[in-house]
């Protein structure tokens, strides 16, 4: 289905863009001002238009995945916990969505398990490994998000989206900025509206998030889950283990 009526030539689109394509900045894409977004490299004055397109892509693309970063995964403070919960509200609107964490920024050696984590040093491995064609990054420090987005655009056909707490990301196909808890909740509401407009239903048992193989093993063979069952509570409950990332694994990766 056509996802937009905009006829302008898009600049930042799903790849593979090639061996070593120019960065979005080299292509002249600049970051949006508050209230605005980037729509495939084009400045979109109304960020809601961008969010609606995000919803359409996440609802229609194979193996859509949310990649939460350290700023959400670790309970730095109550605000981080609230944002993590709001992000789960977005997940709750997308049938069959996966959630794969980016808990840290160190390369995973000798080999990454793409069903366990994504990493900014070789993010394409997780995209390829799960055949992900649409994804949202949220809660990733901007430098590492930018590296990740560049590499995914170069080597995969994934449509990347960034919900950023700061100023957005040129190398994402769709991005919004200044995303605090309220805005993330608003994103979830827009996703709900778009889903209902498209006539897409959620499973009645609320278990709309699909586990990866590794996650399924951790959860006793269960294939799906209700994201809101994972909502953290304030007070330091956010931890690596919360997202299936054990202290032992952290040690191994060091």
């Amino acid at each position, binding site marked *: 289905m056509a996802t937009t009526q905009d006829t302008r030539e898009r600049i930042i689109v799903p790849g593979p863009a090639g061996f070593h394509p120019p*960065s979005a*900045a080299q292509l002249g894409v600049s970051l949006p001002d508050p209230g605005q977004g980037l729509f495939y490299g084009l400045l979109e004055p109304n960020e809601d238009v961008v969010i609606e397109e995000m919803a359409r892509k996440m609802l229609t693309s194979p193996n859509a995945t949310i990649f939460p970063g350290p700023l959400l995964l670790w309970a730095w403070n109550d605000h981080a916990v609230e944002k993590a919960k709001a992000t789960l509200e977005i997940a709750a609107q997308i049938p069959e969505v996966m959630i794969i964490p980016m808990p840290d*920024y160190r*390369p995973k050696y000798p080999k990454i398990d793409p069903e366990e984590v994504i990493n900014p040093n*070789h993010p394409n491995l997780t995209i390829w490994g799960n055949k992900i064609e649409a994804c949202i990054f949220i809660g990733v420090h901007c430098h590492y998000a930018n590296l990740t987005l560049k590499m995914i655009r170069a080597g995969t056909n994934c449509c990347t989206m960034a919900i950023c707490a700061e*100023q957005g990301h040129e190398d994402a196909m769709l991005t919004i900025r200044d995303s605090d808890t309220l805005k993330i909740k608003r994103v979830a509401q827009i996703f709900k509206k778009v889903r209902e407009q498209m006539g897409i239903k959620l499973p009645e048992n609320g278990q709309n998030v699909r586990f990866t193989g590794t996650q399924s093993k951790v959860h006793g063979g269960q294939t799906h889950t209700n994201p809101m069952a994972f909502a953290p509570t304030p007070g330091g409950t956010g931890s690596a283990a919360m997202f299936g990332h054990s202290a032992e694994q952290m040690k191994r990766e060091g």
Partner: protein
Amino acid sequence: MNETEVKTNPQGDPITSVAAPPSATKKDPHAEAKRQKVVTPEYMFHEAPRTKEFITGSEAAKEAVRRSNVDLAIAYPITPQSETMQLVGVLYGEGYVKEYYRGEEEVGVMAAIAGGSRAGVRCYTATAGPGTLRGLEGIASWPGHRLPVVAMFTCRVVNAPLAIQPDNIEVSYLLNCGMIVFHAENQQDMFDFTMAGFTISEKNDVTLPVGVCCDGFFVTHARGYVRMQDRGIKLPPREAWRGAVPVLDAENPPARLSRDAPVQKSNFMAYNIHAVWQQEVWAAVERSRKYINKYMGGLLTAENVEGADAIIIASGSAAAQSREAVRLCKEKGLNVGLIKVRSLRPFPTQELRQLCAKTKLIVVPEFNYVGWLAKEVATAIYGYSKAKIIGGPRVYGGQSMPVELIVDEVESGLTGKKSTNVAMSQIMGGTVNPDDVAHFMRSI
């Protein structure tokens, strides 16, 4: 006095002096610093009233640091080009700078500045000439590590034989590090660029070091009028948690998600990550443009360029000389404009293409042998202007630049009158005109 009352030092010598009695009127040396009020950058740069003082460039840098809420300053005050770090030490004594010490040499200073910035504090240092090059390994690593820092480079000769005179050749070494580079013309620029540098370098989408260069001696040791905000106000503190990378926190487990060195574990992906990492650093340089426009009023300033037959493009002290050259050219009936480049990284490419589109002649005077600015200008406007570009005049090794040299280049370029110089661009291009050389020899 009996024997038990005699006080001695550790060597057993009697102490004959006595401590001064406690004074009820003793002042807190930090009292004034403690009263400083934080204001927004917008107020500081655009609204705060200013008063004029006649001070040296080093003093201007000191006054900028006083108002910039600096946490850490590390000095290796290379002699004698700049007393800036000595003056910043005075600020430490007064409580305006929270930590200050002298490093062993520039390698250690630049590494320690990196550590301070990684830890999330606002850092400042200054060096010059050979010190810049000695610290360059560390300096060149700052952008890749996304470290907001402001470093002042009071340029002096770096080539052998060493000298302490101004020569801005060291700027050319800084241009390709991935850092933001400003070039100050005078004491006012030193003040403004330093303060703006802190604000720009710490923007989340920038998160890069800023180098504030000047032609040492001319700017650092000479006095000029500087309009400054009240010393009772200062910039907001660094919000390190908003940076593009996490700060280093060795005390908490999330430190493990910090900045391990992925590129040193080489496999195929390592090359790829290094490539996009460099793209990202330079993208951040690009993003700084809007903040330079906002807080400094632009990457360049232009005077009388509309309809000018010739434009002099200069940075640093050469801009001051060029301004006088423009005045002399006007007396000779020549219509000449001036573009002063303030930001070398990012470079004002689009601005120059626009401003130079219709002029006939461009003259680029410089205080160095290699002509790095002329190369930058030629690269930027190639294909966008038909102007003849004269890369010169150039002085180096600490020479001053007589204004007449610049006027001569403009006049010869516009009228065909033989220059008493041989333009450096002609010599470097390998197309020396024997007639020009003969004319030059006759002139001297």
